[in-house]
């Protein structure tokens, strides 16, 4: 089963600390949503409010069209998969997975059969008679998933479930989670601080910071067309170049920056149309820089730049560059692995216009 989830103006205040600040969110049935942000951004608080372990100071939670704001966890069509797995240490795996069904009054034989089915789903059917302490971290993870899914929830809440696994296993579990979610069709809400994990599994990502939603959309949109400076910086490495809007010409705006005037199409302004005199921040990903002449489509030249340092990363060279026109600016750019890169080399730098995102400059917020 599956259900849509809506959060209306949720605020959660702990003493003097505002963990959630007027958050509204609409999740469609069957979506894989990832709440992404640094620790203390409010993502876990939001998950607890969805699960019913905490109630919002203000605001409402609607699941499957019903107001769930003050309904206890057991009565909600949600189950939570905890960070530390929270398996029952004294029960065999089949009893762990069947626990929720037992609470719903299902007979032993029937729930054993169903539990075996869910253990099969996560590839642990042959371990049904083992106890949790006999399993590895990744296996416990799977049992926790099977246990949470066994009660057929409308919404599964996952609280940093992959945080304790090593990198390789984490990548593997991400693929499995995604595949299982596709199969069961349940709405998944997954919390993480790892942006790669978020991009790997999410249908849509919710980027959170300081109790607010900074950005919300499919991974490619969040990465390529972020709607906040925080979101741009959190999703991966990015160069911020400050500028001021000079004036608008038809479908573009001229921005004055330290590396020269740049005429940007209006669709580069992801948050809204610019007004003359507005301070903006241009965001350019390291992989979007080109040597002038190599780029395709409409490009903007940023003048010459000197390589001040470089390192080979396998898929690319990561270079630090100093533009000749703005010596106090340091730019990180990726050069192709086949490139001939040397410190002190001077390059003509260019960027595809479509790859530049311009956001209103923010002061005092990171």
């Amino acid at each position, binding site marked *: 089963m599956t259900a849509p989830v809506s959060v209306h103006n949720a605020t959660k205040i702990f003493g003097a600390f505002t963990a959630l600040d007027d958050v509204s969110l609409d999740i469609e049935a069957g979506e894989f949503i990832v709440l992404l942000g640094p620790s203390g951004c409010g993502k876990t608080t939001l998950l607890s409010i969805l699960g019913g372990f905490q109630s919002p100071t203000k605001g409402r939670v609607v699941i499957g069209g019903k107001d769930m704001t003050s309904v206890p966890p057991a009565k909600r069509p*949600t189950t939570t998969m905890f960070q530390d797995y*929270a398996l029952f240490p*004294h029960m065999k795996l089949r009893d762990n997975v069947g626990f929720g069904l037992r609470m719903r009054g299902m007979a032993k034989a029937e729930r054993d059969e169903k539990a075996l089915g869910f253990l099969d789903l996560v590839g642990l059917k042959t371990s049904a008679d083992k106890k949790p302490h006999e399993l590895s971290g990744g296996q416990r993870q799977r049992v926790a998933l099977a246990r949470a899914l066994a009660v057929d929830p409308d919404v599964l809440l996952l609280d940093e479930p992959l945080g304790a696994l090593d990198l390789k296993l984490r990548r593997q579990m991400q693929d499995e989670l995604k595949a299982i979610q596709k199969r069961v069709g349940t709405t998944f809400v997954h919390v993480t601080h790892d942006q790669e994990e978020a991009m790997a599994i999410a249908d849509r990502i919710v980027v959170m910071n300081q109790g607010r939603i900074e950005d919300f959309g499919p991974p490619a949109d969040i990465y390529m067309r972020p709607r906040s400076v925080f979101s741009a910086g959190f999703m991966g490495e990015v160069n911020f170049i400050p500028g001021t809007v000079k004036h608008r010409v038809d479908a573009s705006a001229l921005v004055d920056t330290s590396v020269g005037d740049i005429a940007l199409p209006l669709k580069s302004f992801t948050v809204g149309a610019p007004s003359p005199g507005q301070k903006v921040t241009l965001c350019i990903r390291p992989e979007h820089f080109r040597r002038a002449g190599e780029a395709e489509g409409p490009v903007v030249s940023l003048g010459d730049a000197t390589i001040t340092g470089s390192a080979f990363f396998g898929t690319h060279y990561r270079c630090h560059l100093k533009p000749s026109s703005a010596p106090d600016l340091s730019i990180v750019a990726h050069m192709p692995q086949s490139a001939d890169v040397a410190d002190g080399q001077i390059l003509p730098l260019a960027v595809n216009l479509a790859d530049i995102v311009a956001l209103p400059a923010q002061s005092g917020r990171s």
Partner: protein
Amino acid sequence: MRDVLTKVASFAYAGLIYGFIFLPVAVLVLFSFQDGRLPVPPFNGFSLQWYEAVFADRKLMAALANSFVVAIVSSLIACLLGFLAAYALARYKLPGSALQRGLLIAPMTVSYLIIALGLLTVLNTFGIKLSLWTVGIGHVVINLPLCFAIIYSSMGDHHINIERAARDLGANDFKVMALVTAPMLMPSILAAFFLSVTFSWDEFIIAFLLSRFDVTLPVEIWSLLRSGLNPKTNAIGSLVFLVSVAVLAVLELTLFGKTKKS
């Protein structure tokens, strides 16, 4: 040379320590097999007559059964109450919880004699007749702090998420306690139970002051002793010792062996 000296000295020391601890018990057990009327040296020969006498003694056997029932029932109650108190204080924010913890453990510091006298006064005031029940109440009073302390100390924060998961899957408070919390804490609950059983089994002052017609084994042994030394008391003492050792052995094999493994 010096090494040999140290070795001899440490063996002698260990021997003296164990002798000091176990000689009385060894003597007790040895003279329970005495073929004669006095449990004192010299040892006249091996005989089981005093064990025969013990098993033939209706009063002693009744006292043994009484002790057993009082120990089991009072320990069950002490464990149940101790578990509930520990659960409440570990899982909920209660007013003055530090003070409440202190109050629960405080009876440990009061001598059994004082507790017995206090209970005697209370029972008299309410006109409650002395019986095995009142002995049991006394034993719950002395064992509850012990059970609470043992169970409370094993309730870690890492259990909180597990209980939360159970609740999330639809378990009510009672089911969470009965199906998740108590089984998870079973090693410490059993440890508390068996310790409580041995304390109740050996306890004399409260059992003496709070009983009347039906008495427990230590009280019966005491009344035997009043009529003078007799190898029969040695025999019953050996039996009591055997029971305690058996309980300890069971504890060691089942519980402590298990916790080492996991």
